[in-house]
């Protein structure tokens, strides 16, 4: 076969992020509530939640090589789980935790079922099949008006302890850090390495004796429950859940964040989420001013295409290249 150029996603080598740099970033984020205003804090909390969501998507795409179009299903289950349960019972921490637990269980079962069903055939099918499932989820959410208030969405009260915005900010930040550490350890564990092997060459992994299907399902379950938790946090933050949490758009949000930031890297997922959310805020403000920016979303689409074609390691990859060039330029002087 004639050699065709490929732009394969994968774990980029040596993203040398100093412990010091990470610590500094965390410290900056920690003091934000003291210096930033409410809108910025809200945006940051959103970014924290959606970063976890994006990281969960990267487990599938970047680390295992699976494209899912129904990832929002798990995000939505987490969101609706919290919303419905609390709306039906009482807004206390106890019920909240119970709701989250139930959502997690449902997510696990569902990701197992869907994974078992669709991972046995080509990976390419998995994308559309997961999409179909997510769409069914949307329809169910719309139809169950008595529970979900359908298309219009539902509001609900949250436990009073979480109403403290500052406290919630730190809770969200802690959530991000915990999720990051957990996923980091997962991807560097023996299981995580098998997933990387599957991503690189599935056939060889099978020949080496690994039950590829089992590992892929583990991957989808881990990704699913992480997305579920992110959804729950999101719901608590917004205090409002509508069918939009289950749609393709939500899955695409994760896809864009992951790819633009840098697929195959947890840092990339966080970076991508940050870029998209900040840029999105800025651009939609511009749209109100000037009509030219009304379809700003196209910019993300084009950026995404350009990155897949020419910079498969995303913005993070580009930054690393620049950093390396600078360092070698400095060294050679």
């Amino acid at each position: 076969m004639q050699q065709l150029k490929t732009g394969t996603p994968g774990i980029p080598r040596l993203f040398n992020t100093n412990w010091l740099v990470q610590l500094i970033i965390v410290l900056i984020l920690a003091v934000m509530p003291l210096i930033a205003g409410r809108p910025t804090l809200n945006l940051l909390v959103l970014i924290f939640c959606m970063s976890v969501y994006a990281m969960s998507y990267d487990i599938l795409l970047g680390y295992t090589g699976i494209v899912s179009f129904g990832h929002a299903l798990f995000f939505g289950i987490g969101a609706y789980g919290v919303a419905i349960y609390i709306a039906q019972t009482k807004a206390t921490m106890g019920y909240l935790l119970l709701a989250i637990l139930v959502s997690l269980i449902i997510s696990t079962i569902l990701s197992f079922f869907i994974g078992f069903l669709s991972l046995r055939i080509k990976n390419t099918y998995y994308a559309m099949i997961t999409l179909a499932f997510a769409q069914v989820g949307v329809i169910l959410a719309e139809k169950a008006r008595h529970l979900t208030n359908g298309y219009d969405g539902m509001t609900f009260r949250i436990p009073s302890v979480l109403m403290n915005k500052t406290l919630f900010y730190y809770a969200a930040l802690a959530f991000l850090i915990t999720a990051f550490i957990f996923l980091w350890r997962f991807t560097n564990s023996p299981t995580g390495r098998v997933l990387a092997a599957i991503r690189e060459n599935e056939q060889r992994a099978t020949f080496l004796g690994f039950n590829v299907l089992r590992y892929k399902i583990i991957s989808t379950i881990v990704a699913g429950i992480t997305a579920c938790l992110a959804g729950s946090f999101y719901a608590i933050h917004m205090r409002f859940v509508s069918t939009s949490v289950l749609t393709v758009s939500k899955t695409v949000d994760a896809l864009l964040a992951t790819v633009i930031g840098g697929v195959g890297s947890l840092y990339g997922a966080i970076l991508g989420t940050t870029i998209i959310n900040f840029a999105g805020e800025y651009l939609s403000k511009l749209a109100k001013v000037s009509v030219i920016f009304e379809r700003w979303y196209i910019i993300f689409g084009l950026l995404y295409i350009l990155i897949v074609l020419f910079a498969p390691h995303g913005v993070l990859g580009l930054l690393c290249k620049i950093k390396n060039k600078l360092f070698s330029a400095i060294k050679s002087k």
Partner: protein
Amino acid sequence: MDIFVNLTVAGLATGMMYYLLASGLSLVYGLMGVLNFAHGTVFMYGCYAGVFVFNHTGSFAAGLAAALSAGAAVGWIMEKVVISRVYGNHISQILLTTGLMLVLNELIKIPFGSNILPAFQPEALQGSWVIGGSIVIVKYRVFLIVLGLIVAVTMNMVIARTKLGMTVRAGVQNPDMVQALGINIKRVFNLVFVIGSALAALGGALMAPALGAVNPEIGLMYQMTGFMVVVIGGMGSFIGTAFSAALVGLASSYTAYLYPDASTAVIVIVMIIVLLVKPSGLFGKGVE
């Protein structure tokens, strides 16, 4: 009884349109291994092209021609600029065609906005025939079935009889060998992609008046349905696609009457059953 006939005609008409949409998808996947996520978007572009031109020129035929051209043009650009760079790399293909879907989806909103655009049937095809006093057959739907059949038969004849069709059939099996025989397979890929897109757009233009109105969101819906049709029928099997298109069309027609909005769920359930029992599809040729 009369409702049954009405629903069946509607179902077959819808099925025909699904066939136009799905066969392009199946052909492109079978020949080039590309799962085109922007296929439904091209269908949607066909809707808009057809409706727009018809509304402004009064000629339905012109609308259909516009849709074909629009579909072919969009398909050509997609293949040449983006997809031809990543043959063989499945993940990149999915990611790229998804990106194309996003961009194209937003692009159409620039001239048309995100609101619905009403689509009218041409006068000659409006109304219905009444048979036996109570059985109502909608003219436009019969037109869809007939036109769809003509296109399907023509396409299958091209595949079976012409040298191009032969090249496509050979290329599906062994693209390297086709190259070794002196045929520029890349040009064939491009042509197949263009034809598949043109067909999808035609399906869209034909379907629009039956839907009554079009909006950008239907692209994704038809993409999903088109894909499910191919999965159920079996990727790469023309008979399979035809059969399952009819099946899906009928199923959604009947359920739309009995349990509105459950049509997608029903098709998903059928797809799940097929995946559990015979993952390669009803007419699929063994494991992919």
